[in-house]
Structures are given as structure tokens and as C-alpha cells.
């Protein structure tokens, strides 16, 4: 039976995340950007929420919750500050690959084009950007499996385009010891689906915030004798932005729901959700800036940050084209066998 309501325990989680985001992230976003990390108070408060170990199994001290919980929480965190979220929550991201380092700063790299190699228990290759200044652990997720390796050599601390609160560096992985490794294409596909959902749900949050901030501005700001939002060209853009956010949210929730059920098409649907989030975020966040005009370009308002965060987030999780490949391949592969030619839902 179709039901779009959220279970009370998930509502509670979402509220907790929203409260934390409001109290510790949103107002500090510029400071977190400049210090390339989060304040100690925010880090302490984050630990107190218990959200960090959201998906860890119960026996490891986690909450054992699923993808839908993650998506709901990440929308709230992403709305406030996705860079700070990565700084706080990077080990939980690592969980998607392996749960062996819950306390360390893990950077997850989706290496879908074999940029990195593993041989003789050592990694080789380099990465032009990772969202951390000094990652303790690099988890490399490929199509075949995953390798968790120790600290890479930091080549350069970078300014970063977006997500500056997470930090940014270029790293070299030559000779870095592989701490653990597994090969399982099906498990790797599921792990990739989770990373995609993680990223897409942060993007959803950024889009929502960009929409709401610019909408409020456009209602207040008067141009040519009436609010910006009451000029039909702007009003239609605001409507389209809201539509994009809602459509993206529904696709994400569907993907998470399918992943939690273990549906056979879940990975393809997660890929689809990421593509939607990436595409729409590049419509919504520049439009938000546009609504503010020159003010949007200035750092007095957060919308320029929304646009940078969205652009950078949508480069992660293996990139949008890989997700497009996966979603498209699932579709045409099915068509090669048979086009069902029936509605069926």
C-alpha cells in the first residue's frame, strides 16, 4: 500500500539532525570554511547526537539503521553545511566500505576508472583532490571491491572550490599499505549505491536551503515596484526550483526505500537518484544566486557557497557520468531482453 509518511522513529532522527544543524552548523558555516574544519563545540555536540554511527550494526555500538534514515539525516545536514558534515561524519561514510575504523578520518574515493592500483598489499597512484587536509585512512571503492589503506602522503593543502569546511588536499598513495581488502562485485555495487545516496542526499539539502533562502529574499526585495518574486519570470523560476527539489527528494526516498528492501534494481535506482540530484543542483543553486542578483555573488549571503558546494558534491561518488552509465545500462540491458509493454508499477 503506497504510503509517503515517515515512521515516527525516523522523524525523531530527522528532528535531531535538524536541531543539531541549526544550533551548530548553519550559523558557523563561514567560520567552518575559514578554519577548514568544525569547532570543538560542534564536534562535541555531534558526538552527543548519536547520529555518527547511524548505520553501524547494533553489535558495534551503532543504531543499525538503513539508507532511508541516512537520506533524511543528510538532507538536514547538507542544508546547513555539507563540508562540515564531511568533516564530522567521514568515518560513517567509510562505513559503507568497511566498518573497521569508526574513529578515524576516512576519505572514501570511488575509483570507477581504475586510477589507482593495488599490488603486493600496497596502493599506487595519486588524487588531485580529497575532501580532507590530512586523511588518516583512504578507502578506495572500485567496481570489484574495496581496499582500505593508511594515511596517504599529502602533496599539497588546497583551497578547494567547495566543501572547504571539510579541508582539501592533493595526495599521493604510492606505497601506502593496504590494511584490508575485499573483492565482491555485488557488494561493491551496493557500497557504491550507498555512497551515491549519501552524496545525493547532501545535495538535496543544499538545494532545499538554496531554494528557501532565495525564495525568502525574493519575497522581501522590491524591484520595479514589487517583490522580485512577484515578477512572473522570477515566480516561475521559483516554482521550477521547488519542483526540482521535491522531485529529487522523491527519487531519493524511493532509492533508499528500495536499497533498504534489497530490491534487485536498487543500485540502478540509486544511480538515477544521484544523476537527478547532480543535474537539478546545477539548476537550483545558480538560479538561487540569480534571484539575489549582485548580492548573490557576494559572500555576505550563503548562496554563492551553495553553488560551489553543489558543484563540488556532484563531482564526488564516482561522478555523474558513471551514475548515468549505470542507470542507462540497466535500462537498455532490460530492453535488450524484452520491453515489458505493460504498465505495472
Amino acid at each position, binding site marked *: *500500500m*503506497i*504510503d*509517503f*509518511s*515517515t*515512521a515516527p522513529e525516523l522523524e525523531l532522527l530527522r528532528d535531531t539532525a535538524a536541531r543539531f544543524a541549526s544550533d551548530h552548523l548553519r550559523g558557523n558555516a563561514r567560520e567552518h570554511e575559514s578554519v577548514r574544519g568544525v569547532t570543538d563545540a560542534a564536534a562535541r555536540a555531534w558526538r552527543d547526537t548519536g547520529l555518527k554511527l547511524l548505520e553501524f550494526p547494533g553489535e558495534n555500538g551503532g543504531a543499525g539503521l538503513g539508507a*532511508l534514515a541516512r537520506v533524511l539525516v543528510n538532507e538536514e545536514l547538507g542544508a546547513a553545511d555539507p563540508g562540515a558534515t564531511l568533516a564530522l561524519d567521514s568515518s560513517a561514510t567509510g562505513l559503507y566500505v568497511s566498518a573497521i575504523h569508526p574513529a578515524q578520518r576516512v576519505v572514501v574515493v570511488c575509483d570507477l576508472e581504475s586510477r589507482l592500483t593495488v599490488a603486493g598489499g600496497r596502493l599506487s597512484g595519486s588524487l588531485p583532490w580529497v575532501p580532507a587536509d590530512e586523511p588518516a585512512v583512504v578507502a578506495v571503492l572500485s567496481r570489484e571491491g574495496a581496499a582500505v589503506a593508511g594515511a596517504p602522503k599529502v602533496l599539497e593543502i588546497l583551497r578547494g572550490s567547495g566543501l572547504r569546511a571539510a579541508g582539501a588536499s592533493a595526495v599521493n598513495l604510492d606505497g601506502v599499505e593496504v590494511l584490508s581488502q575485499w573483492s565482491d562485485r555485488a557488494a561493491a555495487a551496493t557500497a557504491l549505491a550507498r555512497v551515491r545516496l549519501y552524496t545525493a542526499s547532501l545535495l538535496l539539502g543544499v538545494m532545499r536551503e538554496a531554494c528557501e533562502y532565495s*525564495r525568502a529574499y*525574493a*519575497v522581501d526585495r522590491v524591484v520595479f515596484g514589487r*517583490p522580485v*518574486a*512577484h515578477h*512572473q519570470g522570477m*515566480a*516561475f523560476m*521559483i*516554482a*521550477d526550483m*521547488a*519542483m526540482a527539489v*521535491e*522531485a*529529487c527528494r*522523491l*527519487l531519493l*526516498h*524511493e532509492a533508499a*526505500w*528500495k536499497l533498504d528492501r534489497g530490491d534487485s534494481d536498487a543500485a540502478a535506482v540509486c544511480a*538515477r537518484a544521484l*544523476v*537527478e540530484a547532480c543535474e537539478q543542483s546545477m539548476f537550483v543553486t545558480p538560479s538561487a544566486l540569480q534571484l539575489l542578483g549582485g548580492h548573490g555573488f557576494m559572500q555576505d549571503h550563503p548562496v554563492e557557497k551553495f553553488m560551489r558546494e553543489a558543484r563540488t558534491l556532484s563531482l564526488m561518488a564516482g561522478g555523474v557520468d558513471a551514475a*548515468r552509465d549505470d*542507470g*542507462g*545500462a540497466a*535500462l*537498455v540491458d532490460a*530492453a*535488450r531482453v524484452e*520491453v*515489458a*509493454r*505493460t*504498465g*505495472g*508499477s
Partner: protein
Amino acid sequence: MDLELDRQSRDRVTMLAALGRDTLRPLGLEADRLGRPIPADHEFFASLVELGQGRTRWRPGHGSGGRESGQEAGRTGGTLAMICAVEEMSYWDRGVAVAFPGPGMGEAAIMGMGTEDQKQRFLGPFVEPDRPRWGSFAMTEPGAGSDTSAISTSCRRDGDDWILNGAKMFIGNASRADWIMVWATVDRKQGRGGHRAFVVEKGTPGLGNFKIEKKMGLKAYESTSFTLEDCCVPAANLLGGEQYYQSREGTRGALRTFNAMRPMVAAMAVGMGRAAQDEALIFARDNGLLDRTRVRDRFERIDRRLAAARLLAWKAAWLADKQLPNITEASMAKALAPAVALEAASLGMELLGETGARGDHLVEKLFRDAKAMDIVEGTGQVQRVIIARQLVDLPRS
């Protein structure tokens, strides 16, 4: 959260898929080729009635509001169940689906606004119809489409009757209907506040000049214009009776109907878009186009946007069934789905190339059919106006 259809809806979809494959699609293609609606006396309609189609959801004699049958529209699954059904029918042929006998769009208004006597008189014959019967719903006029507040068909009280004058246009199934729900105004200056709905029965003097329009697509059902010339309608046919309008509920009657309809039209567009996608996929497969990245990426986009449109329609319908406000969601679904359906059909045409230009391929028909969905029930632009009113309080004038 649950996104799986219940068993009853799945079974219904399966049944409609069989009906669609065997009957709806061939009939739709035939009507398109002949360029005229399926005649009212076509045996297909009689067979539908024998199958139990063409009935009203209303049931007599159960409390003041009447009772909806649990199968058709239970309080928790009504709109959702309906949109799943209309999506499937539209997948096979939306034009034929609209031609189905039944009380049509007027049913919800009668159930919501009508008196007990009116429900009995106008919906009673649809409880167990002896033959194919149609109801029709007439709002649109030559000078008033999406802007329903601008209708100019007039009504004035004359003793025990009302006198209607005006013209209606693009009205589905009007010439074959037992009755037409005609929307008129006592005073144009009052906008929707002046609206009155009348059930005008077939053969009423002054109701005439039926003309079936020639359309670009969706030819299987009739879109008809007609006139009302000093058309004398008994006061008993004023929907809801005088008191209803005096209590200011009148303005909301039509809007409520439209609110329920927008997810429905969105679902129709999703069905048509999926049909276009499937036919295009079959063509691409059979012509070795599936390996082209450019082609695959475009299919991926269509598939994704159709999925989003369907979820939006489902959510709007779910809200309606929960009796929660759905104005924004309904308009979002209605704004998105038709654009995606047209994009799907247009992609299909591109893949077909000159084969599409021949004018005899299903994808070409869907390309013509789909455009209408961005117009009926409020254009895509009107939906954006509605959304903007909700979001930024966009002024009405």
C-alpha cells in the same frame, strides 16, 4: 514509507493491461487513422459495461453522503487507485480511456456538492447501467480555458427554472452524454463566486449545435462544442441547490474537482510517456541503436524524469486520499509529467527518423497525443502560477 501498490491495484492494472493490449490500443490507432471518435454505439462500449466498467462510485441509501464502493474508491485508496488505473489505460491509449462510458468528471462534483435527490437522479442510472451511458463536464468556453473565473455562460433565475445562455467548447463526450454538467455565472464580475453548476439533461430545449472538433491527436474521444440558447433548466438541476451557493461553498466546488484531477492528468501523461519510451526502446533495440551512448543517456533521462513525475503524482494522490492539502504537489505533478511525456515521444520521433515522418507509427501518434496533456486541467504555466501563489503569494492580478 511504502511505494508498493496493494494487491487490488496490481490486479486491476494487470486486468487493464490485458484490456489495453487487446482493445484500447487497436481502437485508438483505428480512430486516429479514421480521424473520428469511436461511435457511441460501438460494441466496445457495450462490452465494457458488461465487464462492469462505466459505473459510478456512488452507492445509494447509505447515510447523507451516499457511500463509495470500497473497491473503486475506499476512503484510504480512492485517488491513488484511480491514478494507477488511468496511468495504465493511458499507456495503451489515453483517447480511448477518455471515451470510456461513465459519469466522468462531473461525478465527483455531484458526490461532493449534489443533493440526495440529484445523486439519485444523475448518478443512479450509473449504478448498474443498462447500456453505455456518459456524463459530461463543461467548463471551457471559447473565451475561457485555464482561467475558469472568466467563463461567460450566463444563468438567470426564471420562476422554477434557470435560463442559460452561452457556448462551451472542447467538452469531452458531450454529444453522447445523458447529462452535461454546465458551469455558468450569475455575474461575471464575481469571478468564481458567481459560478453555478447545472446538470443539463440531453434533449433540453436550447441545448444544441453540437460540433465535434477536429484535433491534432487523441481522436478516439469526442471533444465537442455546443451552445445554450435560452436553455431552460429546472431549478432542481442546480447542483447542490440554492442554499449551497449562498453558503459560499459554490466557489470551491470546481476547484476541489480540479484538485483531485491534476494528479490524475499527470498520471495519464506518465502512462503516455512510458508508452512512447517503450516503443522508442523497441525501435532502438531492433535497429541497433542501444549501444550508442548518446541514445542511452537520453533514455536514462526520460526514464528518470518519468519516475519523478509518477512519484509526484502518487504523492499528490496520497495526500488527497489523506484529505491533506495537495495544491502544490498536484500542480507540480501536472506541470512536470506532460513535459516529460512530450520529451519521450519527441525522442522516439528522433530515433525513428524518417520512419517517424511517415505518420503511421505509434510513436508519431503519441507525439501528437501527448501535447494536449500540458494544456488540459490548467496549462503548465497555470500550474506554475498556482505553485508560486503557494510559495511566494503571487498576486492574482
